[in-house]
């Protein structure tokens, strides 16, 4: 009798265990209701305003993935969650890195360990992206970076790091592709010009690491593309006076002036060149001071015709309707236009959404495979890129988007004017004004 009872008890126990296992297994196989993605940004300290704009860009993308937007002609707007994961919603878990690489790495660890995020994105500052991505690499968790531009980030051979934005080397390559294009008549509104009009370069870069790197890149690409640097120098960006430097550029006989300057020194250079009556054919600035609102506001009409490297312009809406639509929504929510950085962070999360959908799983290996095979077309993007596809566009690069591009804007119609896109040529938003011709 006792043996029979024991046997029944064992059978019952086995049945309970099997039933529980059967009950548990469908839940394990079912897609998650939400997918956590960790977003590490500078949300406090001096970069807090930038961090806020970036956060709004990422949040907008998550909202567009999670809720249907029939008016928007991009695929994520029709999804209502990740379709191949049963409509699972993207849930963003934000972390503040305060601009501190050490703290950023700690936040990456916390998000992976405690929040159990599927993957990471961020961090804006290349130095923080560098340390945070090391944690993702150790944990075997995908890190998709939208906006950090240090070339070194994709030269580390990491298996779990993908970068969507073009990097600094690219921007200098863009400049010389643009100059070459001018000689071939590719610029909107400008007939092919003789190379002799733009082939002599005078380069002024401020003397920190950024300026020195910009100068080295310009020297490298100028040699490759057959342009002559007739004058170059580095200068302290806190200089009280740049008269002798400006005069030196004028005396060099250069027809094209290139700058890597912060705001105050870029203003001082342009004012001084104007005062001295310089008349180069082209003036180009490497982002930074040249794209700050105060540059045009302060110098007014003196900036008209100046070119600057950038990444985005609200004017792109003229040639990319989706950029106009999304910028409008973004502006309603944030109160200001997309910047190059917030627009790229939008695309960063868009890449995450496509990768998850293609992977049909939240397994890191499946996501990595999907990222490596990913191809998003230009029509899907707000950026003026040919698309997103990861590869090795420059020697040493791995898992770097090879279809990206910088933008060259021309300041037109100041005071109160706009940054009009003149490169990539296919995304030009206005006729280019050529030559620059001075300030008469």
């Amino acid at each position: 009798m006792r043996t029979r009872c024991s046997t029944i008890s064992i059978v019952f126990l086995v049945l309970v265990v099997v039933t529980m296992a059967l009950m548990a297994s469908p839940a394990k196989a079912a897609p998650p209701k939400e997918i956590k993605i960790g977003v590490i940004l500078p949300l406090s300290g001096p970069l807090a305003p930038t961090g806020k704009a970036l956060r709004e860009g990422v949040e907008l993308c998550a909202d567009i993935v999670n809720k249907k937007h029939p008016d928007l002609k991009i695929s994520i707007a029709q999804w209502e969650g990740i379709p191949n994961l049963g409509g699972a919603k993207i849930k963003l878990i934000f972390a503040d890195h305060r601009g501190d690489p050490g703290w950023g790495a700690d936040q990456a660890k916390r998000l992976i360990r405690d929040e159990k995020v599927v993957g990471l994105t961020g961090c804006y500052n290349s130095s923080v992206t560098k340390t945070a991505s090391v944690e993702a690499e150790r944990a075997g968790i995908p890190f998709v970076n939208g906006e950090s531009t240090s070339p070194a980030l994709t030269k580390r051979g990491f298996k779990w790091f993908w970068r969507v934005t073009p990097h600094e080397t690219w921007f200098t390559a863009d400049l010389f592709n643009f100059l070459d294009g001018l000689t071939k008549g590719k610029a909107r509104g400008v007939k092919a010009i003789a190379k002799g009009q733009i082939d002599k370069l005078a380069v002024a870069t401020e003397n920190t690491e950024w300026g020195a790197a910009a100068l080295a890149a310009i020297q490298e690409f100028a040699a490759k593309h057959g342009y002559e640097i007739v004058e170059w120098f580095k200068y302290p960006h806190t200089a009280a006076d740049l008269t002798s430097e400006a005069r030196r550029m004028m005396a060099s006989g250069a027809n094209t002036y290139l700058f890597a300057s912060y705001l105050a020194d870029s203003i001082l250079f342009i004012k001084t060149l104007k005062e001295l009556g310089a008349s180069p054919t082209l003036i180009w600035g490497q982002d930074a001071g040249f794209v700050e609102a105060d540059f045009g506001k302060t110098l007014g009409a003196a900036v008209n015709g100046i070119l600057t490297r950038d990444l985005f312009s609200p004017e792109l809406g003229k040639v990319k309707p989706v950029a106009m639509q999304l910028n409008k929504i973004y502006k309603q929510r944030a109160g200001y236009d997309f910047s190059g950085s917030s627009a790229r962070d939008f695309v960063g999360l868009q890449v995450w959404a496509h990768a998850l959908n293609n992977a049909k799983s939240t397994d890191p290996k499946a996501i990595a495979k999907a990222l490596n095979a990913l191809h998003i077309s230009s029509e899907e993007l707000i950026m003026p890129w040919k698309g997103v596809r990861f590869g090795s566009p420059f020697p040493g690069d791995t898992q770097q988007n090879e279809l990206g591009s910088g933008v060259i804007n021309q300041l037109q119609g100041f005071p109160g004017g706009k940054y009009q896109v003149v490169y990539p040529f296919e995304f030009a938003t206005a006729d280019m004004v050529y030559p620059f011709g001075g300030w008469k």
Partner: protein
Amino acid sequence: MELATQLVTYGVLMGCIFAFISLGLSLIFGVMNIVNFAHGEFLMVGMYVAFLISSYLPLDPLVSLPFAAGLGFILGVISYRLLITHILRGPMVAQLFGTFGLMLFLRYLVMFIFGPDVRTLSHGVLVGKTISLGWISLDASKVMAAGLCVLFFVFVYWMINRTKLGRALRATSLDAEAARYMGIDTEKMNALAWGIGGATVGVAGGLLAHFYYVTPTIGMVFILIAFATVALGGFGSISGAFLAGIIIGLIQVLGGHYLSELKFTFIYIAYFLTVVLRPRGLFGW
């Protein structure tokens, strides 16, 4: 020859402006033996006066010069009465940190009121105008600033050396206690030195705003050059400040032309050599 003439002309013009900015600093140090770290912020206030008068009234920024001088004078006297008289009783380090605190206070007060934006004057009879002298093209406002600098130096030099007030100021600077015994109100002389110092740098700021950008942190750009100028010319020496300003203007223009990256280095080498070889400067008291 053409190049040399241009560089020397630009150097002398900028040198006059550096000298003008340093004049008040030299005067205050000469009378009271105190280093005013907030001097760059007094300059910034003068620049904002020019910017506000030209933007919001709107009058020619040259009209702002008497207002910049007046506000600079009041700012100098108030700083002396409310801060300096108290910290003078403390150790030397309290004096240093006192004016350093005043510098931060003024900088961030202006930043709070006007924001960190960079601004420039958009109109004025001299704004954006150039004067062509043969092969040299000069900013009319820089020429004006240099001319007024010379006038102010002559006036302050005359006042210090030829008037009763100037003699009282010099007596206060040489021996305050003895001056008091002789019936000189040394408190008044100290306040006056701060007032004149504030007024001169206020005018320099009003002129600088004609061709330079205006921002709350602009003092940082000029204060180190002003210190180097005062040290080179001799602490408290009016003629020394003028000569040193010209020397530093020439050094930074020539340095900028031949080795731009090191233009500050050349200025500080001159400062360092002066401190080592002739600690009281070229014309120190």
